């Protein structure tokens, strides 16, 4: 007999089962995670309030005691600090919003609360979600629990570090150009960015409105499926870009598949008929050999499951970098204009007139990367440059989306690496923003196209650091992605590996 696993090693599904069975209370579970968070050294959390969390847990226990049995009731999670919350301060990783308290909850936050989830606090991230290493947090960098000298990825770096280190069973993240998938990949967890518009953006501090999308980060596809089922759905009264499509139950089929698998008559080739497209642009010289090796062995596993691999072409992949770094900063430069020191947020202590107040408040409030992107965005939208940059980028964006549609005539899912390398050392790329931008190469194109994509743990590379497999689906095909990831996770255990810095 093995000893029963610690509470923090349980998946969301298993925790929910224990709560439903009355083996443990939500208050106990919540207190357990709060205790772990108290001693964390990863810089994963920006805001905590044990009283708030425990009060939510008590409320969940009341619901449980009343006989309610919903899939997430009483399970804790934590939110990326980009989601505004009534109960915790929301900073978006920026000094500009130090101590900012929102009078309302983001839709995603309130939906998960309605589902009975308990919020453990707010998670570190790159300032305004701008970055891929969490080094742009105005407060402190988050660290990778597999090697605390390394970045956990970004911008949802706190979310990834916390889930990987078992400080929370699950977390919310946001993905504008890879900010869920890349940190999930670099910390060995599972994360999905749904189709643009699937989750409401209401209450997400906006970075690039046409790209921002919320998604869950957890240890398995099944856990992500449970969370996404609660997070997704139309919010037409509050977000005009929200998809007018009913919420989907992503988890039931996966749970059924799991039950089937453990039975006697499991099919040998559950993914028979699934065509996985491999864009040659994702497997070129730009990708580190250790990453390629892990990705290829994962693909071999998919073949064993019955999938067929086909070559596809995404010829404009390289252009996704300049296109993204025109469009996202353009939108950001405008979205961040509201941080002017007039109504809330940072205002300089001393100024001579209105313009001086703007200049000082914004210069003091924004960090380097936010400032850089505001300047790039302002430039590309300026009179005389708009056509050459912004408009051209939008045209190429459309072509990139068309390329995906062409590829999806030959395959059902596209696969490749998430990041060209494993997690790099903190400070390594700090002086070279372009190096960071280039590392987004495999996630940007699907973001620009608005497609769903996920990262699935697929082994380890250099330094024993995790490598993620990226799966990209066609529009609204989250269920297919989660199903494919789930099948893989039923025959592999990469997602169950624990980092050294987790206990």
């Amino acid at each position, binding site marked *: 007999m093995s000893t029963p696993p610690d509470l923090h090693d349980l998946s969301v599904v298993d925790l929910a089962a224990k709560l439903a069975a009355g083996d443990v209370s939500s208050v106990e579970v919540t207190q357990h995670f709060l205790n772990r968070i108290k001693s964390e050294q990863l810089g994963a959390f920006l805001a905590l309030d044990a009283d708030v969390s425990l009060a939510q847990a008590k409320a969940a226990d009341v619901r449980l005691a009343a006989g309610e049995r919903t899939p997430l009731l009483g399970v804790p999670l934590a939110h990326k600090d980009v989601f505004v919350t009534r109960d915790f301060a929301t900073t978006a990783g920026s000094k500009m919003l130090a101590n*900012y308290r929102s009078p309302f909850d983001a839709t995603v936050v309130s939906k998960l609360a309605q589902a009975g989830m308990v919020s453990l606090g707010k998670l570190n991230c790159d300032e305004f979600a701008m970055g891929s290493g969490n080094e742009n947090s105005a407060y402190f960098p988050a660290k990778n629990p597999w090697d605390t000298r390394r970045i956990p990825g970004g911008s949802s770096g706190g979310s990834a570090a916390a889930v990987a280190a078992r400080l929370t069973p699950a977390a919310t993240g946001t993905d504008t150009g890879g900010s869920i998938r890349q940190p999930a990949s670099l910390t060995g967890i599972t994360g999905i960015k749904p189709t643009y518009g699937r989750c409401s953006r209401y209450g997400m501090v906006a970075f690039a409105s*046409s790209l921002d999308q919320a998604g869950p980060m957890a240890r398995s596809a099944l856990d992500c499926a449970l969370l996404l089922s609660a997070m997704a759905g139309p919010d037409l009264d509050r977000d005009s870009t929200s998809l007018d499509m009913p919420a989907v139950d992503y988890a039931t089929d996966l749970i059924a598949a799991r039950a089937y698998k453990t039975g006697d008559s499991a099919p040998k080739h559950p993914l028979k008929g699934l065509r996985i497209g491999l864009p040659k642009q994702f497997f070129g010289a730009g990708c580190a050999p250790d990453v390629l090796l892990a990705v290829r062995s994962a693909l071999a596993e998919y073949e064993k499951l019955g999938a067929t691999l086909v070559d596809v072409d995404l010829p404009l992949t390289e252009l996704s970098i300049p296109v993204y770094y025109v469009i996202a900063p353009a939108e950001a430069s405008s979205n961040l204009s509201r941080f002017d020191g007039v109504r809330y947020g940072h205002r300089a202590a001393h100024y001579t007139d209105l313009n001086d107040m703007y200049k000082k408040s914004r210069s003091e409030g924004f960090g380097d990367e936010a400032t850089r992107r505001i300047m790039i965005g302002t430039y590309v939208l300026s009179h005389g440059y708009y056509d050459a940059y912004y408009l051209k980028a939008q045209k190429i964006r459309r072509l990139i989306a068309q390329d995906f549609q062409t590829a999806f005539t030959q395959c059902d899912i596209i696969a490749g690496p998430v990041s060209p390398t494993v997690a790099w050392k903190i400070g390594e790329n700090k002086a070279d923003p372009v190096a960071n931008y280039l590392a987004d190469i495999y996630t940007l194109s699907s973001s620009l196209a608005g497609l769903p994509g996920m990262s699935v743990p697929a082994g380890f590379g250099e330094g024993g650091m995790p490598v993620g497999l990226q799966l990209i689906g066609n529009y609204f095909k989250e269920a297919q992605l989660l199903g494919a990831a789930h099948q893989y996770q039923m025959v592999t255990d990469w997602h169950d590996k624990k980092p050294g810095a987790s206990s």
Partner: protein
Amino acid sequence: MSQATHVLLDKLVNGYEVVIGFETHTQLTTQSKLFSRASTSFGAEPNTNASAVDFALPGALPVMNKGAVQRAIEFGLAVNGHIAESSVFARKNYFYPDLPKGYQISQFEIPVVQGGAVEFFLEGEKKTVRLVRAHLEEDAGKSLHEDFADMTGIDLNRAGTPLLEIVTEPDMRSTAEAVAYAKELHKIVTWIGICDGNMQEGSFRCDANVSVRKPGQPLGTRREIKNLNSFKFMQQAMDYEVRWQIEQIEDGHAIQQATVLFDPDTGETRSMRSKEDAADYRYFPDPDLPPLVIGRDWVEKTRAEMSELPRVMAARFVADYGLPEYDAGQLTQSKAMAAYFEAVAAASKQPKLASNWVMGELSKRLNSDEKAIESSAVSSLQLARLIERIADSTISNSAAKQVFDALWTGESTDVDAIIDAKGLKQISDSGELEKIIDTVLAANAKNVEEIRAGNTKAMNALVGQAMKATQGKANPAQVNALLKKKIG
């Protein structure tokens, strides 16, 4: 010299042709704001009619108010414009404390209403001003400089209020024409109910782009007079601006493109900012808002449900009542006036007389007493009765004015009673009239001779004599007929 050139030269000011285009911000009558559910009501405590969207709190997103779109469609139909199947909201980026997001959501490249025209009469002449576009946009908040020492207060109650900005071609050739256009536009938007037209509260604000040129020359450099919120100031401001521009040019100075404000106290315009300070607004499509798609069924449903438009009603007045176009245009200045006219015409069965009286005596009295037609002291039924008495020759036109006066001042409410009391009844007994005419003929034998010799002018003198003898109570036409008969 052709007729057209003659007309043009008539309007020249010191040899210069005036060219004016208008941009009008009409505040739409929706209950809530363009992109939030906060109330649009006027005069609330500062910052009480503002939501998370209006304060531009982090995470707040705009959601289009369908009622504003509905009103834009109604306007487009009223001016025969094209309702765009798909129009785009753009962000106009600039920093100002009363602009909470740091950008205004407006429509830039593709507006909701494209083209159209406003038609009206100016001194009996029909004018057409072409519209470039009408687009939806949100208003800014207000900076309050009073009541705060060394500080500025910000009130965001107005922030996000829906506006329809209506832009004309530079089609107006005089300041009078421009004011007439503004009045006509005001009439249209209030008539269809998309704007309350309250100029004091800023519901209808005009910017006038004014330039001058020598006839035949290309367009001159324009200056834009901002925020004209009364027709009187509009006229004064443009007149001043035209004089000022001509003086500048005559003095050898080139006009610099500028935005100016009119100061009603000095009667002058002064420059706010020149082109050099013009901001780069970095317009781009708002990624928070998908294109505004308006199905043809929505447009057609709106068309079917709209009340009769002034120009349609005017055409009907011409066709059904046989009124001149000018009359029809005047009578459709407001829904209330048109309704009053129709009531009088229906009750009296005398549309032309009804038109004359509504446009004439009634309008004159309403103006001098500063009363709206809704609160006219003479009801449509009273006026109809009065007109009947003119039509059936009971009273003469001049007697009718005395009756109207008595009705207006409240001396009595009954037309026939006034006629009796004042003894205004025309002499309708032809025997009595014949006696009077015989007397007139006898006393003016010389005139009779002249008429018989072919001098028709002498006839008028006799008619005058006869009318005088009856103290105006005779029907002039009847007198004329009797005189002719008797002289033979």
